[in-house]
Structure formats: C-alpha cells, structure tokens
C-alpha cells in the first residue's frame, strides 16, 4: 500500500513538474492515437452503415468477421505490419518502419474493428423510419447519413471512446513498428513497458497515472460537450 501511495505522489509530481521529456512522450501518444481515430472514423462509419442497412448476401458473415477482428492481438497487427514494412517486405521501399506514420497505420488497423462493430450495433438500433424520413424530406445520401449519426450520437461517442481507449492503451503494435525510440516514437505505453522491463515499477505506474489523468480530462470535456441527453419520452 505504502509503495502504491508513493507512486501516486510521484505521478502527480511528474505531471506537475512539466518535465519536457514527459510531455514529449505524451505528445507522441496523443498525436498518433488521435490521428488514427480521425482517419479510421469515416471508413468505419461507412462500413457500419452498410452492414446495418444494406441487405447483401453474406452480411451476417461480414458482421461476424468484423467482430472477430476485435480479437486480433496488437502484437499480431504489429507483426504483420512489420513484415510488410520491413526492408525485405513488399512495402520496404516506403521506409516507414520505426516512424510515427507507421504507428498511425497500426493503430488505424486496431481501431477499425472496434469502431465498425460498435457503430454497426448503434446504427442498427436506430429506428428505420429515421432514414426513411430524412430521405423523404429531401435529404441526400450523405445528409441522411449525417442525420443518422446525429440521432445515434451517444453510441457514436461511446464507440469513439472505446476505440480511442483501445489504441492509446495498446503497446504491442506501437513497440513493434514504432520501436520505442527515444524522442521519436516513444509513447506513454511503450515508456511504461520499458520502465517495467527495468523493474522501475513506480516510474511505470506514474506514467500510467499520467495517461489516465489526461484521458479523464478528455472524457470530462466530451461529457460536457455531449450534455445531458437522457430521454424524456412520455407518450
């Protein structure tokens, strides 16, 4: 217990000391993960809409497949990307390995299944009349999609948060294709893994708390934005 308390204190100290090395790592983490989410969101939305609204043969299998991809271990994504981006791999010429760009690609791959599966379940639960009504009232295809998203906004936010949580917290692919290089591709989680490897548990835990504090700030901001959206249906 005592050690845990010390660690918490150390974490706060770390955060408040504005240690530039720490903020550099935080910057890399958030830049990579936020970019990945932003890039992954539009295609995930489209696929989710397709799966939720368009009847095509093999749809059920496609949904199962998306759900399955949620179980892809991060190391496996890391491995596959590594093999593709490696000098001896088919995309070696791009020289992407051990760059932030490669990490973003990895996290996009990790975020896609979570986003798609959650968005599918959300969009599917929206009343079919919503789409019909929008189309009838003159909305184009994209406008109707936008209305659906607005109607499903709580679910969409939950999906984005889940995906963001997954990729900001992941270490397997970040370390494999980022390489945990100081000042370049070291993120909070790869730094934690390193500290743990060294047996510096307190330091690792402190970094973890820093990550949590920042995630909390982000979530509270979102919570305020989203406002109080509970139903008051009395009819």
């Amino acid at each position, binding site marked *: 217990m005592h050690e845990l308390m010390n660690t918490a204190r150390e974490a706060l100290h770390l955060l408040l000391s504005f240690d530039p090395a720490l903020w550099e790592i935080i910057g890399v983490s958030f830049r990579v993960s936020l970019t990945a989410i932003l890039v992954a969101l539009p295609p995930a939305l489209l696929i989710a809409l397709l799966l939720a609204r368009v009847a095509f043969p093999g749809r059920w299998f496609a949904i199962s497949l998306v759900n399955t991809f949620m179980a892809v271990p991060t190391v496996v994504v890391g491995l596959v990307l590594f093999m593709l981006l490696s000098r001896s791999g088919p995309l070696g010429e791009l020289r992407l390995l051990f760059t932030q760009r490669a990490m973003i690609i990895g996290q996009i791959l990790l975020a896609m299944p979570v986003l798609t599966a959650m968005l599918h379940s959300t969009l599917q639960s929206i009343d079919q009349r919503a789409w019909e009504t929008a189309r009838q009232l003159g909305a184009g295809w994209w406008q109707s999609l936008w209305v659906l998203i607005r109607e499903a906004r709580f679910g969409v936010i939950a999906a984005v948060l889940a995906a963001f949580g997954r990729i900001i917290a992941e270490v397997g692919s970040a370390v494999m294709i980022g390489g945990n*290089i100081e000042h370049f591709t070291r993120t909070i989680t790869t730094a934690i893994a390193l500290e743990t490897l060294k047996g510096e548990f307190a330091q690792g835990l402190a970094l973890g708390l820093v990550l949590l504090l920042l995630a909390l700030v982000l979530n509270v901001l979102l919570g305020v934005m989203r406002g109080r959206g509970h139903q008051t249906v009395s009819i």
Partner: protein
Amino acid sequence: ADIVRLATTTSTYNSGLLDYLLPKFEEDHPYQIQVIPVGTGKALRLGRDGDVDLVLTHAPAAEKAFVDADYGVEPHGVMYNDFVIVGPSGDPAAIDGGEDATNAFATLADEGATFISRGDDSGTDKKEKHLWEEADVTPDFKGFRAAGQGMGEVLKMASELQGYTLTDRGTWLAMKDKLDLEIMVEGDTALFNPYQVILVNPQRYDGLNTQGAQALAEWLISDEGQDLIDAFRLKGKALFHASAGEKIDPTSAVHESD
C-alpha cells in the same frame, strides 16, 4: 511436484539453453521448475520482492548490489559468453576488423553513424554505457537511437535501419540468419559477459522454496550441469562456456570461428 520459480533474462531463455537443461534436472530431482523470462532488471526485482526462488542473470554490478543489500545469497558464476559489435555489411563507419571495442565506439560517435542502443538498463545496456564512458563520448550523436527494447528487437531494428549495435553472442547466433548484419568487432576482453545464479534470501520471506532453488543452483554448477552447458549447441555453435569455480580468463571468450 515441488515448484521452483526461476527468473531469468530473456537471452538465456530464448537461446533454448534452459529448455535443454531443465528437463534433465527434473529427471532426477523431485522439483518442477517454472521459468519466468524477463529482463535482468525485472528479474532482480522479482528476486527482491520474493516472488521467485532464484535468479539467473548477467549484470555483475547490479548483481553485486543485489547481494550486498542482502536480497540474495550464495551467488555463483555459472557460465559466460561474450558481446560483439555488429553492423551493416558495407560498414559505412569503417570500424570493421578491429578488436578494440572502445576505439570502435569512438569512431561511431565521430562518424555520427546510426547506432541502436538497448537503452533499457539491461545487462547489455550497462555494458554499452560502460563502453561509451571508456571511449569518452556522451552518446547523443546524430545517429544514436535509444530503443528501450530487448536484444532481439534491437537487432531487428539495426538491420532494418542498417545501423550498428552491441549484442550478446547468444541472441546474435539465434537471429543472425534473419538479419542483414555482420560482426564488426569481437574478442575484446572488454566484451566479456558472465552469468550468475543467485538464491533469493530465505530470511526475508517465508515459504520460499530455497531447498529446491539450492538443488537447482548446485546442479547447475555441478560437473553434470557444467558439462551439459558446454555441450549445448545452437545452430551447431557453442554458445555458453561453463565457468563454475573458475577464475575466468576473459581473453578465452568464444569466437564465432569455434
């Protein structure tokens, strides 16, 4: 069976040495060994906290501190191998051929060559830091990259980025087929790499399986264990040299030509 927990570095585990040794130990002893492969730092930490019964590591300075602080008892040298400096076949920094590791490091810094450092406080990392000190450079030159990962990953990274790195010979042998690298410097006495087995201090925690740990440690330094270590081959190459009770001559470090 009676369970003994051994924390060891990934290098010994990944080379296959323990998979080769331990079944032979378990055959004539009433113990079952659970191996927990981690970094040296974490292995010693597990020992300090009493979560394992003994450790097998290769970081002399840290091990000395571990024993001095009474976390561990009965340290024994078990075996050794050595470090080598590896780099891309073209050798852009022109360090090849020498046996002088310190010199090679100084050249790397001067040339600003790409160098991948473990940067994880492991035994290898400590050795590397020591060499930078000897060479009288602060490692912040242009091509220096602190990866903060295990040996295998760092080797992979060096191969991908066509840079230099310092590695233990075991990992090197295990991985060299998959790498686009060659040995640049080897045989320097400064590149010596000894392994020790240390029991966790039974006075600090109840319920440790010290008896089993002792049996294992004693077996490792017994003639039988030592012969087996010497006989171990990875891809046809000898990897570890048994050294229990010897005052080792560092210059006899294994060479790849063995």
